[in-house]
């Protein structure tokens, strides 16, 4: 088995590290406090050509695979951002990019993908509703035919990145539940403007990932044009899953980067801080061992994530690997950020030391985009052949 990175992959990692280091932990700390979007950082990532790594070359991408995407994101996140930067990759190249590249029209591809890669356009994705989270097939948002298009009504929640995006991928019912056999039928995808009559949104006050707002979104008779449908009418569910599947690989890559950063902050502090006499606290095994434990967990999660990415790139099923990697990475990243705070004692509680921000941000990924419990449900059924418990 070949674990050796090729020359191009090494260079990409190097570029990602350099771009990431231009926007180190202090940059993110300041933006976190201001609740401001990392505009300059995202632009630099786009300028370096990293945004479109796995999008088609003819539309401004690099035509690479998820392995490269995972390597790039990990390195960017490890340089200072932590896990939240990976979300901007989810929103743009994944939710926007993959949906358009795979299911969009030629016109959408030609017009939007180059702008996505250059940073001129941003995207968000609206699936979750107040009564449809883990049970997303319960979604109630509806699109009813009017003329050549549709009228959209309903409510979404936790939609991330709405204010800075031009486009929103909306998941809606186009055929009511009563008229279909299975709930997976009658669902369609639309790519609409975020600024449009009848569409309103309000930001949710939240614990972390403050540089990218999450909002409640209301659709009050929003007009959808006929050419804004992405994919196949009424058959959008499986196409959506196909888009969302790669999201897990991106999430995990970000968490591994965040974990590496927390490990470094913790170890650096432990090497310097002396409490009793001349011995640095890093010499105590009770300080070392948890960090060593998390290092091992993160390495294992990284390997599993790259396996998932490599399977994806080779057209093989990768669901079990990507889910399991995300499970371990989210737990390890949360735990190592928490441990870094513990190592810093009182200073760990200070925003200046960054560990608390990494901890707040990493915590999200234990229940989103998919919760630990739902991953365990999945593994129980798909890998262990156990009955569905819900």
């Amino acid at each position: 088995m070949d674990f050796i990175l090729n020359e191009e992959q090494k260079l990409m990692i190097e570029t990602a590290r350099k771009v990431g280091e231009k926007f180190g932990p202090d940059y993110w700390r300041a933006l976190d406090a201001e609740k401001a979007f990392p505009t300059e950082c995202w632009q630099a990532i786009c300028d370096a050509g990293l945004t479109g790594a796995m999008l088609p070359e003819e539309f401004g991408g690099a035509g690479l695979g998820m392995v490269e995407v995972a390597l790039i994101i990990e390195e960017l996140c490890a340089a200072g951002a932590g896990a939240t930067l990976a979300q901007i990759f989810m929103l743009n190249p994944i939710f926007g990019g993959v949906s358009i590249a795979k299911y969009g029209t030629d016109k959408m591809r030609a017009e939007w993908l180059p702008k996505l890669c250059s940073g001129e356009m941003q995207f968000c994705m609206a699936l979750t509703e107040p009564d449809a989270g883990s049970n997303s097939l319960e979604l109630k948002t509806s699109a009813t035919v009017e003329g050549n298009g549709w009228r959209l009504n309903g409510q979404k929640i936790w939609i991330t990145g709405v204010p800075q995006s031009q486009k929103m991928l909306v998941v809606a019912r186009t055929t009511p539940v009563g008229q279909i056999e299975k709930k997976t039928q009658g669902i369609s995808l639309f790519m609409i403007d975020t600024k449009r009559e009848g569409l309103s949104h309000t930001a949710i006050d939240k614990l972390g990932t403050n540089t990218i707002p999450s909002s409640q979104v209301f659709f009050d008779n929003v007009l959808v044009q006929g050419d804004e449908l992405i994919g196949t009418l009424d058959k959008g569910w499986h196409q959506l899953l196909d888009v969302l599947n790669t999201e897990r690989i991106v999430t995990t890559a970000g968490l591994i980067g965040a974990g590496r950063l927390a490990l470094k902050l913790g170890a650096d502090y432990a090497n310097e801080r002396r409490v009793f006499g001349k011995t640095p606290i890093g010499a105590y095994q009770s300080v070392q061992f948890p960090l060593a434990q998390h290092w091992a967990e993160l390495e294992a999660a990284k390997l599993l994530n790259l396996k998932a990415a490599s399977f994806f790139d080779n057209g093989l099923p990768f669901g079990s690997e990507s889910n399991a990697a995300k499970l371990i990475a989210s737990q390890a990243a949360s735990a190592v950020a928490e441990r870094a705070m513990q190592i810093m004692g009182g200073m760990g509680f200070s925003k200046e030391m960054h560990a608390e921000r990494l901890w707040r941000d990493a915590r999200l990924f234990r229940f989103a985009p998919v919760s630990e419990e739902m991953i365990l449900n999945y593994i129980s059924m798909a890998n262990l052949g156990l009955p569905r418990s819900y």
Partner: protein
Amino acid sequence: MKVLVPVKRVIDYNVKVRVKSDGSGVDLANVKMSMNPFDEIAVEEAIRLKEAGTADEVIAVSIGVKQAQETLRTALAMGADRAILVVAADDVHQDIEPLAVAKILAKVVEEEGAGLVLAGKQAIDNDMNATGQMLSALLGWSQATFASDLKIEGEHAVVTREVDGGLQTIKVKMPAIVTVDLRLNEPRYASLPNIMKAKKKPLDEKTAADYGIDVSPRLEVVKTSEPETRQAGEIVPDVDTLVAKLKEKGII
């Protein structure tokens, strides 16, 4: 005009250097290696000359172990047009001395018909600060060292040099060797599209023997040792105590 840029593979500047237990040198096994930072500045300057239309072609050259191919690939990904690898060592611990490097470079310059050599002022591993100067002597070309600004004006290069106490501007006749200092420019990073393009750019592989140059060492490293660890500081309440302490230690 062709610009030749020699680039050296050195221990990454972020790596905490460890001396080998036998004191024979720095441990380079499984250590991250990168392009010498001053050479990155030289590559950047060469690319800018090409972008400005002053240079037609930028050629990167590295002399050392086979792995220096990665360093050359970095130069190509930044924007150099092609690269030449001169394999002159098998062991990563074998440093090729400045004179041997300069002799090989002189041959490459002649073979390529280069009109300008842009080199780093020194390599951060052994800080020799000699290759550029030796090359200029071997070729009989002008030299301008420690450049913090470079302009090509017809038959001349106008170079601002960082010297003790300020800046000195000199005008040298082309062809010339210019060695570059830290403040000349801020090197770009390789964008993803350029990384992919670099894969297809030509990289020739040669050996020191192809140029008839003997690279066996002339210098003997007697001993390498770690710098002394810093002593713990002491906080004093006022200037008087500070002065008293300094006197006590015989510093003033």
